[in-house]
């Protein structure tokens, strides 16, 4: 008599973590490509911030490595500093960037460093955490040590606030932007009455969004006859049926299918967490 053992392996989808990159703040006239090479104190501040993430078991995207990759691949298409920063953030694949502004203050009662730390979601601009750290005044010229102290004074608090926002995302969904517009030659407009109900397209879309947004949570920035923008739509992190990871691509596909069912010819383009739908 043979014994048959059956092993059932339960697979639980591991949640995809956001990619976080720590970047330096740049002032007018500063070059983000060389700023870290020129300033050891900023390097110290950025490294200390990354260390804080490491201590929480979270791996960040290295700004210097991405910068080098961008230079090696001749990514930069403009000399405008704001454009270069945007290009670095976009090509890094980062979902969140943490910007560190280091200000050195010299005075007769001692020197100090003030650190302004801000964390944003790249595609939506949603703020995740903001802290101002002070090193305190000391009779020292070691601004690196002061920068390090300023980071240490707020890093834990900064990450705790960020974690409450992450908890909110886990419980209430992640934000995406949905921008619906028409091809120049399209015969349709937002007021076009389509589908079996004969309702205006904008209403059809909103009714679909009402059912599809996670916990019915969405916000319309504005609607014109040629465009409809949802500047904040919550989507779940996990598919509610299968438990698999869910993302803006999947949400865009559902919207695409819905529009096709209405007899339309949509096109979709997804950049990060922004979904662009163009109706032909």
């Amino acid at each position: 008599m043979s014994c048959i053992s059956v092993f059932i392996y339960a697979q639980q989808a591991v949640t995809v973590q956001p990619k976080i990159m720590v970047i330096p703040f740049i002032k007018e006239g500063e070059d983000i490509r060389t700023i870290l090479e020129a300033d050891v104190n900023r390097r110290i501040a950025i490294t200390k911030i990354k260390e804080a993430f490491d201590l929480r078991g979270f791996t960040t995207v290295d700004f210097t490595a991405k910068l080098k990759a961008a230079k090696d691949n001749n990514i930069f298409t403009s000399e405008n500093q704001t454009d270069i920063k945007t290009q670095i953030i976009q090509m890094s694949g980062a979902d969140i960037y943490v910007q560190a502004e280091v200000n050195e203050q010299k005075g007769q009662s001692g020197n100090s460093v003030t650190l302004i730390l801000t964390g944003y979601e790249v595609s939506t601009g949603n703020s995740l955490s903001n802290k101002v750290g002070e090193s305190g005044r000391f009779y020292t010229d070691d601004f690196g040590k002061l920068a390090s102290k300023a980071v240490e004074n707020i890093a834990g608090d900064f990450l705790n606030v960020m974690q409450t926002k992450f908890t909110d995302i886990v419980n209430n969904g992640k934000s995406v932007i949905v921008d619906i517009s028409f091809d120049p030659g399209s015969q349709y407009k937002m007021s076009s009455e389509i589908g079996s109900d004969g309702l205006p397209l904008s209403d059809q879309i909103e009714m679909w969004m009402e059912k599809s947004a996670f916990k019915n949570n969405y916000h319309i920035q504005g609607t014109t006859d040629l465009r409809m923008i949802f500047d904040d739509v919550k989507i779940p992190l996990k598919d509610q049926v299968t438990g698999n990871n869910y993302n803006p691509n999947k949400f865009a596909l559902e919207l695409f299918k819905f529009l096709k069912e209405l007899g339309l010819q949509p096109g979709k383009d997804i950049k990060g967490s922004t979904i662009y739908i163009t109706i032909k």
Partner: protein
Amino acid sequence: MLTFIILCCKTIYPSAEVNYLSGTEQMVNIRVVGVGLDEEQAIINAEQKVFDVLFFRGLPESQQKMPMVGSDQSTEMSKNKKYFDKFYDEQRHKTFVISSIPSSGLSKVKGGKSITVDVIVNLSALRSDLETFGVIRKFGL
């Protein structure tokens, strides 16, 4: 008579009497008043008050301004009953106390004796333990 009955049923919560002294992201030094039947019990009470505040209230001025677990103490404790029973009743909390030094003498109060203690807590280890046992989520989504 009705007022007496109502007052009897009203719950009066004592003050936590927990004050932040100093700290970093990895540890926190807190001054706390504990009450017990003797010095040992008072110190344990003091230490456990520290963890109550860290878990369910947060500590202003520190790097742990927000509660580590959540604000709804009774719900969180019943969700993770096994963990908290071991933590408090079996005094597992002591494994996260770096030091616990009385900063005042023992004084007689209503209900027993009170003592002021300076407690240093290993926040990193505590957070890691809460994550390991699923009481809180790891950093991230």
